């Protein structure tokens, strides 16, 4: 039982937190700008590399410099929005999807060009579980990741429910045409969406970097599970994305649990398929997602 908690459930939750933070941005972009942003994963990578440079420059803990990285990444993303997405505001979604695809290639090659492809680390060494909590095995980083995720979620919740712009974001995600008729300034909402999505993606990336390492494909590798989480939670539903991320993170880890006998239920070679299988099943049987997101 302890093994289940320590080696399957807790890692699943940590992974789920990372997916969840990343998926919020995808879900919001999907809801408000109405396209699947393929560049989201590489935005995450960019934020992590900016954090890495700040860490190397300042010598501070990655979580301390991450807010600055969020701001810088947001700035870059806003610039990219202006140049590459704005011309397509009224075009069919496919144009934006393809533009984001092009941007994905561009961001990644810029990262590879300037930072190189070698593996890097935000933090070296390994972290043993905290003595005080044994037999539950939580390492310091995992507590930090889960704690910071909870804080960020609360911040997101407050922004979305307590601020005018947050409510406008939810309104626009609900019904963009009506939002325009109501006088909501869509461009402001779009900027806020990019800012929130990019910042959370940077946070997710930094957490992933703390838990593993930093490399140029890290965000891209997370892209499809994040999509899956966004779909699972319901498009345009930030809370849904959080739930979706957790479900997918935990499901991936639990798929390798020896539920029957002593061998993993599913060969770990298929681990990456778990997210997709959940996603496809969801789309077919409950396309509005867990949280009744917008249906197309």
């Amino acid at each position: 039982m302890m093994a289940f908690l320590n080696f399957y459930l807790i890692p699943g939750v940590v992974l789920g937190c990372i997916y969840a933070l990343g998926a919020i941005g995808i879900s919001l972009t999907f809801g408000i700008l109405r396209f699947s942003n393929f560049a989201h994963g590489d935005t995450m990578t960019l934020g992590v590399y900016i954090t890495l440079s700040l860490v190397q420059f300042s010598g501070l803990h990655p979580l301390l410099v991450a807010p600055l990285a969020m701001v810088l990444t947001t700035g870059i993303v806003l610039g990219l929005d202006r140049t590459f997405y704005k011309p397509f505001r009224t075009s069919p979604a496919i144009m934006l999807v393809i533009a984001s695809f092009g941007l994905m290639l561009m961001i990644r090659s810029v990262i590879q060009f300037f930072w190189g492809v070698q593996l890097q680390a935000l933090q070296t060494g390994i972290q043993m579980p905290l003595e005080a909590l044994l037999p539950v095995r939580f390492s310091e980083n995992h507590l930090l990741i889960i704690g910071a995720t909870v804080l960020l979620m609360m911040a997101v919740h407050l922004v979305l429910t307590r601020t005018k712009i947050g409510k406008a974001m939810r309104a626009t995600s609900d019904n963009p045409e009506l939002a325009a008729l109501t006088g909501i300034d869509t461009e402001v909402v779009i900027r806020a969406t990019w800012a929130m999505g990019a910042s959370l993606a940077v946070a997710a990336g930094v957490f992933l970097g703390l838990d593993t390492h930093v490399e140029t494909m890290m965000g891209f590798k997370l892209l499809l599970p994040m999509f899956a989480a966004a779909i699972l939670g319901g498009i345009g539903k930030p809370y849904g994305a959080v739930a979706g991320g957790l479900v997918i993170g935990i499901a991936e880890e639990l798929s390798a649990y020896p539920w029957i006998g002593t061998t993993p239920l599913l060969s770990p070679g298929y681990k990456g398929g778990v997210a997709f299988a959940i996603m496809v099943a969801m789309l077919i049987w409950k396309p509005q997602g867990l949280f009744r997101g917008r249906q197309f």
Partner: protein
Amino acid sequence: MEQYYGYFLYLLSLLTMGGIYAVLTLGLNVQWGFTGLFNAGIAGFFAVGAYVQAILTTPIYARHLGGYEWPIPLAMLAAMALSAVVGYGVAKICIRLRADYLAIATIGIAEIIRLVFKNEGWATNGPRGISQIPKAFEDLPQPWNTLAFVAMVLAIVMVIYLALERARTAPWGRVMTAIRENEAAAAAAGKNVERFRLESFVIGSALMGLGGALMAQYLKQIDPQVSDPLTATFLVFVMLIAGGSANNKGAILGAMLMWTVWSATEILTSRLPDEFAIRSAYVRIFLIGLILQFILQRRPQGILPERRPKPHPRLRGDRAPAANTGSTKQ
């Protein structure tokens, strides 16, 4: 002289790869261009075709299924057929999903297909893939074998083109356009929208399988990396959009042109100074992204925009009021 012969051979290789991609873009054009089905799982159907071709034609090898040694054309038909069957299965469960949802579902399915090919090593040799795949005309002396293969690929592209052009202007194609433009009106005109969409998806999938079968021959080696979504799905979309979606000529042109850009940019970037030796590869990917953005912004309808067939007479009357959504309540 030698070097011009080399350029000629390179040109043939561009035509071959461009031609194989044209088969894929034409397949996608049936789904996306004509019917508006956002299939983002091209890689999956492509992989099915490629693996069927490989398994059916390779000589016996201990590490994967094989030893059937089918004749190449027969294997190609089988590749198309099996891709069509998989396409039917996927369409059966996903076809009613709209735009982006269909895209994401099909991406997921394509990734699952890739994982199956990667993990079921007894059949596919897992990540190491299948080697020594027979290629049509390879016994001819050089350069005739290359020429014959190019000719075969281009002939296949031509046949598909002619068939699709016929279909496009035939009632079937006009119904497809009507469905894409206004599903409600098409349904109101008594068309079984779901069945038409299903047909279109299956035909497109079969063509993607054929593309895979050709690719397997041309490369003589396939492994799960061949169906990498970057080069087997997204690139195909880029080609179709650049060429002009819903225009069959555009699909072919887009495939040829974008493949040339994809491939030939390297000739440029490999000339960069030494200190950029490795980094030039990243510059190249950057350039490809930039060219794509350029085309999108300057030529959003593609190089060859859609030419509309005349609307289906039975649908024409219903279209005008339906376009005026909101003002009428049906």
